[in-house]
């Protein structure tokens, strides 16, 4: 096991670290995660209580990034919003992955009826306009962090299923799969030891793309008022306040920080995804 790390993963790691954009993206993401985790207890941030003495306050002074229309501290909301947005993104991506990967592997490994059922279901899921579907489901379930996470997560399985399915199909053609069976390896062992390790590379890249997408979807939903509900903060519902023209033109400190946070996060994740794609590409080994 030790040796394995030293060769394949060492090469991947080394290539990832030589990809500048990916390193910057990774650093930003790690920094962001650390900040949203440690800042609230450290600085005693309060994203909910209104400071009625300082409504719509400009940045500086007692409120680092100013306050919004009802006097809540923007910086505190930015940090807590980051917690929410990253959590929704990560959890929903994990849900999608946990649903899509087993289904896709089953389809590619078993073929036949399983394949037809899974892949046609994926086709049907993908032919729905996803944002409409999400809006409907969220309004049925009632908007909250958990319903948004669940809906984005469940509806996202198709990408993972399709990717791993295609990957498994090509791996199944390799003679080492026949060799695994020839020595008597059971189905589960064959999948875990022979199929998956050779088929997961595209999934790692998909994870990053999906994470970025989930964060954007959560922001859009919250922006529309159907996602995370106030007073809980998320980057999307902070942007919600910018729906008024006065805020948009006169009080940029209210919407610029969450906007920049979303942009920086999604961009970082995409850079990381690019780096991973190059690093995992066997043709560049």
């Amino acid at each position, binding site marked *: 096991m030790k040796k*394995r790390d030293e060769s*394949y993963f060492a090469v991947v790691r080394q290539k990832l670290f030589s990809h500048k954009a990916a390193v910057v993206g990774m650093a930003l993401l790690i920094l962001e995660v650390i900040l949203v985790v440690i800042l609230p207890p450290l600085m005693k941030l309060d994203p909910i209580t209104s400071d009625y003495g300082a409504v719509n306050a400009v940045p500086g002074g007692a409120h680092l990034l100013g306050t919004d229309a009802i006097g809540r501290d923007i910086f505190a909301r930015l940090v807590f919003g980051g917690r929410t947005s990253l959590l929704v993104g990560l959890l929903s991506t994990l849900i999608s992955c946990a649903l899509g990967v087993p289904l896709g592997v089953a389809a590619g490994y078993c073929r036949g009826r399983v394949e037809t059922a899974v892949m046609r279901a994926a086709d049907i899921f993908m032919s729905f306009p996803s944002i409409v579907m999400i809006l409907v489901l969220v309004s049925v379930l009632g908007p909250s962090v958990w319903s948004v996470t669940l809906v984005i997560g469940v509806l996202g399985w198709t990408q993972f299923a399709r990717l791993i399915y295609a990957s498994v199909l090509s791996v199944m053609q390799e003679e*080492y799969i*026949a060799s*695994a069976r020839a*020595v*008597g390896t059971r189905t589960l062992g064959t999948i875990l030891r022979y199929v998956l390790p*050779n088929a997961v590379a595209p999934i790692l890249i998909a994870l990053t793309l999906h994470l970025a997408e989930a964060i954007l979807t959560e922001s859009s939903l919250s922006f529309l008022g159907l996602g995370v509900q106030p007073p809980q903060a998320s980057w999307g519902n902070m942007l919600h306040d910018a729906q008024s023209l006065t805020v948009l033109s006169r009080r940029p400190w209210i919407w610029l920080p969450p906007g920049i946070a979303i942009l920086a996060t999604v961009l970082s994740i995409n850079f990381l995804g690019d780096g991973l794609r190059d690093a995992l590409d066997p043709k560049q080994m």
Partner: protein
Amino acid sequence: MSDRIILETRDLTCRFYGKKALLSRERPFVTAVDGVSLSIRDGETLGLVGESGCGKSTLGKAILRLIEPTAGQVLFEGRDMAAASAEELRALRRELQVVFQDPYSSLNPRMTAFELVEAPLEVHRIGTKAERAARVAEMLRMVGIDEGSLHKFPHEFSGGQRQRIGIARALILGPRFIICDEAVSALDVSVRAQILNLLRSLQRQMGLTMLFISHDLSVIRHISDRVAVMYLGSIVELAPKAELYAHPLHPYTRGLLSAIPIPDVHRVRLDEIPEGEIPDSYHQPAGCKYHNRCPLAQDVCRRERPALREACDGHFVACHLAREKSSE
């Protein structure tokens, strides 16, 4: 070598069905292996030779049930592989192993040489971790992989070394029967001889029975005791090696043998090389499958399919005209 039969196929048939065409009622199919009955004796090496696409690899995989046979039996020591349950089959796999053709595709690239050879032991829960490690190291040493390379990955080895690892993986369970499916075809000529000699010496040491599948008549001649010639899914001739190479009875075998290049400018034997191509596999000819390429074909060949019969002692042939030829 004894006369005891260790493995026998009875009317083994493999069909692959294609997609039904629109409005058509029947699914088209290819019969890759067409009712093959073969007996392999304990300790012998049976060479199976034929053109690309004649079904020889499919036959090998069907024997091991890496491809499910459509019909027929595979009897290993009297037990029917083709009808074995999943667990019976797993147990039987300890006795029957395979060395694959392409050493670049047959080794999982994510496992080290050690892990590749240990995996079969793990799967069958043989020995403790330490016992397995010793056995794997010993096996790898026997095939000529030195101890320093145990923890290297397949891509760090050459083609010949990879095939040695493939052989070690096949032999670690101590099987009594192995199928070498074009096991040396992907290797350089120089390496090929080394691997063939390795297989022969391992066969002697371990008392193995081998089914050696190849399209290369020289390789088959080098390693086999008896040789079976396959054409379009059927065995057309089967004889001891010396007999087959000296007195081929089937026109196809003669054609194949005359295609072996001989380094002698004065010997011209091109007259017997079969003309034309293998027929379209979806539409096999009626009667003898070889009649449309056979220089001797007569009416009976177009009507009736010849059965494999014993022409003389231990020499089987499926040809209507063979008896006349042999008595000439």
